[in-house]
Structures are given as C-alpha cells and as structure tokens.
C-alpha cells in the first residue's frame, strides 16, 4: 500500500525478464521504492542490476509483470508521456553514453536542452554539478580526451544536472578513485536531500557499507531486500 506521504515512485510487481534463448535475468521480483528514498541495488556481475535499471527507464521490457514509474504504467505509456517521464529521470549508464566529439559542457547540456532551458540556467547548472564533482577545469574538453573515470563523472553530471525526480546510477564508482567516489556520493546525497529518489546499482561495498538506506541484493535474478522502508524506520525509532 502506498501512503500519501511517501507514494511509491518505482513499483515492480512480479517482474520476470528472460533473455533469449532461456537466460533468466530477473525472477518474479516485486518491490516499491518511495519518493525521496536512496536505495542501493547490489549483487555480483550478471546478477540483473543493469537489467533492472533498463526496465525502470523503459529501455527494455519485462517478460512478465507490471512496472509503475511515478504513476505511469510502463506497459501502456504513450510516447509523449514517456518522453515527459524520461525528462524527469536522470540515468548514469554503465557505458556512459557520451558523445565523444562533444565537450563535457555540450554533453551535459543535452539533458537540459531537451527541456528547453535557457542558456543562463544551463550554464549555471553545469557549473554547479561539475563543481561538486571537481571537474570544472575539464568543462570545455572533448569527452574522448578524458580518462574513463572522468568520462564516468561526466555521465553522472549529465544525469544529475537536470535535477531529476529519480536518478539511476549504474556502477557509478566503477572507474573512480576513492576521492572521486566520495565526490560522486556527495552529489547523490545532496540530490537526495533535495528530494530526488536515488537508485544506485553497484557491487562496491564501500559506498553502502555504512549506509542506513535500503539495500536490494540481487543474485541469480532473485531479489533480497535488507533494511527498512523509511516509514518503517520512523515507526521503529518512535517505539
């Protein structure tokens, strides 16, 4: 049941995903993630983390089950509504999906241009997010001239710059040193405090070890949720 205070922004109901010929990526998974939550999606490589991210942003379709994102049933969503929804979701892909011939600024600006933001806001948002990631000195560099770690931070910056209601990050610290990883997590925390729901798919234990957030552990396509939902935590504290 979704409460009014914390309506679910992501809801999976009995989701299964089978890749041809018969590879089970996700098996009968159900969960809810509430607005404003930060959740870690963990598990070994090939556990189904990326598949789950793809299903959330509707790049891929489930074989079975029902997905609701911010009140939109993804199986019935119309193209225009999908476009509007994608503008509200920031995704930092594992393979970055940057345009190599464009600069850091141009790559990040794409996420803001699709919302027809004015130039001044675009510049200020990009500087703001790059500042948190310690990347302002690279702003006019072409992304193909950057290291993998820097490219990863550009992808994260692009996902965060539009201040999405939902941010999905697939292995966001995979190519980063510890300082850069801390910067990225600081950015995610800042966004989460401002109300963004953050879902981080990772197998890097160091970033969620001391966290109070819920941890969704995937293994062999099956889900195990540890930690409490925020409202349960609040109730637990009161009692």
């Amino acid at each position, binding site marked *: 049941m979704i409460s009014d205070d914390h309506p679910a922004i992501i809801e999976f109901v009995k989701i299964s995903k089978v890749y041809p010929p018969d590879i089970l990526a996700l098996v009968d998974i159900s969960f809810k993630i509430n607005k404003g939550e930060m959740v870690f999606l963990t598990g070994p490589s090939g556990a189904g983390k990326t598949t789950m991210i793809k299903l959330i942003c509707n790049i891929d379709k489930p074989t079975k089950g029902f997905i609701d994102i911010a009140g939109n049933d993804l199986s019935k969503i119309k193209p*225009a509504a999908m476009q509007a929804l*994608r*503008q509200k979701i920031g995704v930092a892909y594992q393979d970055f*999906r940057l345009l190599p011939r464009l600069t850091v600024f141009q790559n990040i600006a794409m996420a803001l*241009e*699709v919302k027809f933001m*004015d130039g001044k806001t675009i510049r200020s948002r990009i500087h703001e997010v790059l500042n948190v990631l310690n990347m302002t000195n690279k702003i006019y560099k072409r992304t193909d001239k950057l290291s993998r770690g820097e490219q990863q931070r550009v992808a994260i910056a692009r996902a965060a710059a539009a201040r999405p209601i939902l941010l999905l990050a697939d292995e966001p610290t995979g190519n980063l040193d510890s300082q850069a990883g801390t910067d990225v997590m600081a950015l995610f925390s800042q966004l989460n405090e401002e109300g963004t729901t953050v879902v981080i798919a990772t197998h890097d234990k160091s970033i969620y070890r001391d966290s109070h957030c819920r941890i969704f552990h995937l293994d062999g396509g099956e889900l195990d949720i540890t930690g409490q939902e925020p409202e349960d935590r609040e109730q637990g504290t009161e009692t």
Partner: protein
Amino acid sequence: MRYLFFILTQTGRNFRQTWGAQLMTLLTVTLSVLFFSFFYLIYNNVLQGAARLGDELRLIVFLDQEVVPELRPALEKKIREFSEVEKIIFISPTEAFTRLGEQLGNDRDVLDDLDGSFLPYSIEIYLKKDFKNLAGIKDFSEYLTTLPGAMKVQYGHGWVERFGYFVNLSRIIVLLSGALLTLTATFMVSYTIRLTLVARQDELEIFRLLGATNAFIKGPVLIEGFLQGVFGSTMGMTALYFCFLWIQNHFNGPGFLNLFEFSFLPFTEAALIFVCSICLCTVGSLFSIRKFVRI
C-alpha cells in the same frame, strides 16, 4: 523562441557534420530549379509571342456564295462550337475589293477597270490569342472546310505549324525538367537527410533516452530540408535571372528573340517555382523523418 533557437542550433550542427553531402544537394537543387525555370522561361516567352501574333491567328474561309444575314447566327454558332473565337466578320466582295485597294496603296490604279464582283464572299475568323488555339489551328481549318459553301480556308499555315511544333517541344521539355526538379529535390534532400540521421544516430539515441520530444528531434531535420529548398531555389532563380540578362544582352537586335520581346518570368510564377521547390525539399525531409526517426 527558445525552441526555435535550439532547433536552429541543431540544424546548424547537422549542416556542419555533413557539409559535403549538403553542398552537393544544394547544387543539385539549384541546378534543377535553374533547368526547370529556364525552360519555363522560354516556354512562357513563346506563349507570349503566340499571343502577340494576333493577325496570324486569323483564318479566312472563302465561300462560293453569300451567306444571307438570317443564316449568319447559325453559322457563327457552328464555328464557335469548335474553337474559342474572338470575332467573326462576314466580308462581301465589295468590302474585299475596297480592302484590296487599300493594301495596294499607290498601286491601286491597277484595279481601276475592275469591279469587286470577281472576288468571292468570305468569312474572317479571329481566334482568341492563346497557344491552345494556335496549336489546334490546323484541325480548325479542316473543320471550316466542311462548312456549307466553303471553297477554301487560308491562314499562315506553314509557320504556324512549325511554331506549334516548337511550342509543343518546349512544353515537353518543361514537363520533363519539372519532373527532374521534383525527383531531385525530393529524393536528393531525402537521401542527404538520411545521411545526416545516420551520422547522428548515437546523438539521437541519447536524446531519445534523455526524453527529447518529437519536435526537438524532428524539427531540425524538417528545417534542414526547408533550408535546402530556400537556398537551392534562391540560387537557382538568381542564376536564372543572370542567364536572362545575358541572353537579353547578347541576343538584342533584329532576329528571333526580338519577335518574342524576351521578358523575365512574372513575379507570381517565379514565386510559385520558389515556393514549390521549398515544399518539395521539405517533403523530401518528411519522407526521411517518417522512415528513419522512430521515437
């Protein structure tokens, strides 16, 4: 306004990315517009020439007897049934004799011992001054020979026929060049835009994932075709105008072109060619959008 800015920025980026193909397309559209409008210019001037040749569009039907005034309306009706006629004049031998005298001028004294009775009754038929009537003049003259009492039909047979062939040829060339313009404008623009879309596939995919709207993705592609049409037809029409000036300067003097008083295309027709070219190029880009941009 902001939307327009983004669309134009994207369009500029597209032009830069595929400038070679864009240039080729622009040249092709320009040449197609030039070819078509050049032949149309010739055709248009030929038609104007035909309209000026009013006297030659007169047919004279010689009769073996007078047409009494009561029968004239019926005969006129029969003539008008076949072709668009401006006026019909019934000429008596006396009137024909007077005209002959006037035509002879100072030599009219050769007619002093004659009266006009040796001249036949005749009907002068003036066709409306357009090419349709000129082209059909032969058939019309044959029709007139079937009129009751008609002995002979006379008109500027030889040159009118040759002129008719020339106009028909011009018309065919105009139609062919029009087809060429349609094909090149539509298909070249369509293929160039397809190239742009292929070159931008990664970018479009990212835009799609970022939630770009249809207008955001399709707008620049549509503008690209539109601009190809604007630039191509502007360059084509400008080149045509310079061709016209060159022809006017180099063929100015007694001769063929003076017969036609060579003039440039009327504004409305030039504007129509311009607008049609733009529409064709835009349609070309629409084809590519429908086929290659899936959102």
